[in-house]
């Protein structure tokens, strides 16, 4: 078993259905008729023995790390920056999104090796968004942080591109 970095396939169709609202809320008709409601995104860590990949449709406790000061479900993602888009030609462009702050797990002990974070939408029934992998880690009475890449057309954490 292994984790594989990818965008979750179910997320792609859910985008067409308008089921996710990343960043600054603008849509008033989905869950509230009077005010925009921003979705809460969360990030959960998974063991190297888990199988989290494009086929993952929702957050699962199966294979999730556990340990001192780690709460099942992970941490809330700072989600303050709206997705942006840029045209690169008459037929091509990129839409992109990056959480606006690092993910931090403070004073945790995670003794079993982990190598994956699942980004998911806790407001929308924990639907999976994307899977990001890194080298195997453990933490002992310490902190673990994931710093996000630059929120640019080429480096953002999540990109939708036409070519």
């Amino acid at each position: 078993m292994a984790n594989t970095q990818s965008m979750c396939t179910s997320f792609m169709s859910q985008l067409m259905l308008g089921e996710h609202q990343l960043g600054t809320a603008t849509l008033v008709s989905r869950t509230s008729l009077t005010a925009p409601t921003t979705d809460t995104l969360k990030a959960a860590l998974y063991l190297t023995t888990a199988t989290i990949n494009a086929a993952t449709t929702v957050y699962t406790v199966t294979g999730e790390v556990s340990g001192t000061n780690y709460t099942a479900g992970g941490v809330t993602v700072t989600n303050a920056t709206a997705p942006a888009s840029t045209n690169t030609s008459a037929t091509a462009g990129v839409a992109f999104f990056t959480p606006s702050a690092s993910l931090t797990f403070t004073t945790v002990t995670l003794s079993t090796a982990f190598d994956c974070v699942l980004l998911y939408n806790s407001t929308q029934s924990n639907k999976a968004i994307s899977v990001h992998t890194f080298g195997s880690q453990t933490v002992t009475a310490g902190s673990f942080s994931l710093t996000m890449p630059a929120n640019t057309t080429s480096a953002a954490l999540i990109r939708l591109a036409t070519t």
Partner: protein
Amino acid sequence: MLVTTTKGDMDDSLLEKRNGTVDNDNELTTWVEYWLEGELVHRSAHVTLKKTVTLTSSVASF
């Protein structure tokens, strides 16, 4: 400097410090460990993600 360890907060002068870096196409990771008499009592890691996930879209022609 006090370090949080499995044995409570300890002054780093009492501990052996080890650290390292991993830098590749996917990540830049730094880690630090503190050891006390051969026992790992603290390990922290900080990962900067480099690789994006991209959905490449297309539209069909009529």
